[in-house]
């Protein structure tokens, strides 16, 4: 066993942290308060090469391996980039662009990947519906073939990047009677007649990511926008889980490191009863618990990434365990961080307040903790 990163990976991580601290983090607070997506930061992520890090260079990517790609997510969290932007990046790169990259035709890849990798286009994925969350088979959005076109009808819900996306990978039933096997995936471009997005939902956290409903009313798309074959959609959606349980969890690991530094810094400077509060054992214990969470979570996330690099099929048990641990246990460090900061921690000025709200999504998004427990208990 070897838990080390290569020298190049560590240098890349440090470089990304420096970049993010300088170019992105200074605008986080303002955008979070306004609930606005930070287009400039997103564009800068593209310029730095993050949005297409794992795609081949000929498609505008960086050709990185999975571990390095996941490390980028950790670095963003460690730098203090907000959960909204890292979520937007995740939905864009892994849920949308990667699905096109893995399952698209050469023409589809050439058309969409370079723009998505550079950030010139923003992507999203439309899977969840108002009445179909983890129970994907109960989705009601349909895609009816009419000659050389498909007619999409239905609504998608809680779609990250929904209101701002140029490209959407949308799942719909082409043969509703086949349940999972009747689901297909399509590329839908912004401006397509019959396709619209609802207004951004006002959320508890990850406020800089825009989330909305997607509405399809007799939305006509060319048949060439089908991804892969009819009926392959469910498997495509499941394949995104590999990224969801690694690259999308990594910012929470990085965020624990960020919280630890912030809390330690505050505890050293805040004086009560004649001494810095960091000298009280109760504060040290909280700092310890934040560190312990981050260290425990790290290996779970990188195990998924490393196995993907080895070309192994996703181990669904290990993936669900990673998601359950990071999701459920990541709440406690954010709670402790707010408590260490006392009244200040409850105020927006101190970003532990934002991280507390952002983290609440971890046990919900991408399959709730209860769903993970269902998966684990069925597989054990």
């Amino acid at each position, binding site marked *: 066993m070897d838990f*080390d990163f290569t020298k190049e990976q560590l240098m890349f991580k440090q470089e990304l942290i420096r970049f993010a601290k300088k170019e992105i983090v200074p605008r986080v607070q303002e955008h979070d308060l306004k609930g606005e997506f930070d287009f400039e930061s997103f564009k800068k992520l593209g310029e730095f090469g993050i949005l297409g890090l794992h795609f081949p260079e000929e498609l505008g990517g960086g050709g990185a391996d999975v571990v390095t790609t996941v490390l980028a997510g950790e670095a963003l969290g460690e730098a203090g980039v907000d959960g909204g932007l890292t979520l937007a990046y995740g939905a864009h790169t892994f849920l949308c662009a990667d699905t096109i990259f893995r399952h698209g035709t050469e023409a589809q890849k050439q058309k969409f990947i370079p723009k998505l990798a550079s950030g010139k286009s923003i992507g999203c994925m439309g899977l969840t519906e108002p009445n179909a969350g983890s129970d994907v088979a109960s989705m009601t959005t349909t895609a009816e073939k009419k000659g050389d076109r498909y007619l999409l009808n239905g609504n998608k819900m809680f779609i990250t990047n929904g209101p701002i996306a140029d490209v959407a990978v949308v799942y719909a039933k082409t043969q509703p009677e086949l349940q999972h096997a009747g689901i297909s995936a399509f590329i839908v471009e912004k401006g397509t007649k019959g396709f619209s997005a609802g207004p951004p939902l006002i959320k508890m956290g990850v406020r800089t990511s825009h989330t909305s409903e997607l509405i399809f009313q007799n939305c006509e798309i060319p048949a060439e926008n089908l991804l892969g074959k009819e009926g392959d959609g469910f498997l495509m959606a499941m394949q995104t889980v590999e990224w969801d349980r690694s690259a999308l969890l990594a910012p929470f690991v990085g965020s624990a490191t960020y919280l630890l530094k912030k809390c330690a810094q505050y505890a050293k400077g805040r004086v009560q009863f004649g001494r810095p509060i960091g000298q009280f054992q109760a504060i040290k214990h909280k*700092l310890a618990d934040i*560190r312990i969470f981050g260290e*425990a979570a790290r290996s779970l996330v990188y195990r998924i990434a490393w196995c993907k690099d080895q070309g192994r099929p996703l181990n669904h048990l290990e993936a669900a365990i990673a998601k*359950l641990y990071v999701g459920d246990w990541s709440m406690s460090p954010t709670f402790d961080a707010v408590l260490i900061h006392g009244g200040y921690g409850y105020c927006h000025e101190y970003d532990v307040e934002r991280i507390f709200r952002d983290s609440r999504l971890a046990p919900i998004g991408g399959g709730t903790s209860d769903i993970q427990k269902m998966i*684990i*208990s069925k597989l*054990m």
Partner: protein
Amino acid sequence: MNFDFTQQEQKLFKDINDAMLEMAGERTLEEKDPGNAGKTVREALIRLEKTSYLKLGTVQDKDIPGLCAMMGAMEIVSSFSQSLYLSVEMSTRLFGRIISTFGNKEQKNKWLSPVLGGKKLGAVALSEKSMNIDNDPMATTGVRENAVIKISGTKNYVINGLTADFTAVAGTIESKPAIFIVEKEATGLIPGKPLVTMGYDGLSVSGLTLDECRIKECDVIGPFEDNSAFNTLKMWENQILVGGSLGMMKASFESAKTYAKTHRTGGKPIIAYQEVAFKLAEMLTLLQTSQLFAYRVAWAAEAKNRESEVLTCCAKVFCTEAAERVSGSALQILSGEGYLSGNAAERAYRCAKYGQIAGTSTEIARVKIGNAALGA
């Protein structure tokens, strides 16, 4: 990065598992055997010696797997019997490592070879009035008198205290930390009564009194310039407790899982109820997270990572607390059956507490981790 054990390491795990299975047979390995002076543990040492288990972490050789495999191997032995595990570990991984790391050639020949050969049993006497040695100076002292050292002091909570052939006694000489190796028959070594403990039913634990106990000068390791040797000892002890926690969790989880799949109520196996299934899912999550954490800190120690000590504290807190939680959940699932003496979960639940108070206690470990975060 590599998350796999090698074929050689996997073979070692199989050999250890087979050796323990053969030894356990139909009997429990947790019964006290005060009259047999550690007969069970001596049998285990002989069986384990046929694998490279006793040498893990102690002998540096290309044919001996490293510390990650040591953790994996510890989990296996602990899952069979926590008492046997701790007894073997104190002899090989703690006593053995003291000699292999700090001892000279003669000392290694005299004590290390028989211990790693499974022929002799070692013990380490660290604790005094209280279990932790972090806050109070060591009161046990050695006084030089010609070529003889006279040791005086009282040690407590000594595992293998009544059964060991050799005991490494921590103390000071000329105000500097040192370790005295005391053989069983040494004049002035007075074993205390066996201590009755909450868990570890089959373990020999006692106090030791050293009343001007006489050893030769060549039987002293050290003196050391500072406490770093004792800190290293604590880290090794913490590694042992981490490995032990993995075994407890594994045994409890497997016991609860089997029961949940076979015990029926309301016309279906109880695993079909989400309350039970979800508990098992949380238990497995804690077990796998602990395993990876343990392997990672073992790797860090082997790589001589500068954060190795604090990382070990992190894993020790996490794994020992997880062990209590997992065994507690297992008890809940096993219901009345789990509450009966001798059940794997009941036994692990009683043993789990020890992991939190021994070594670097959970509270002191958290203070150390906090200090590291503060740069203190």
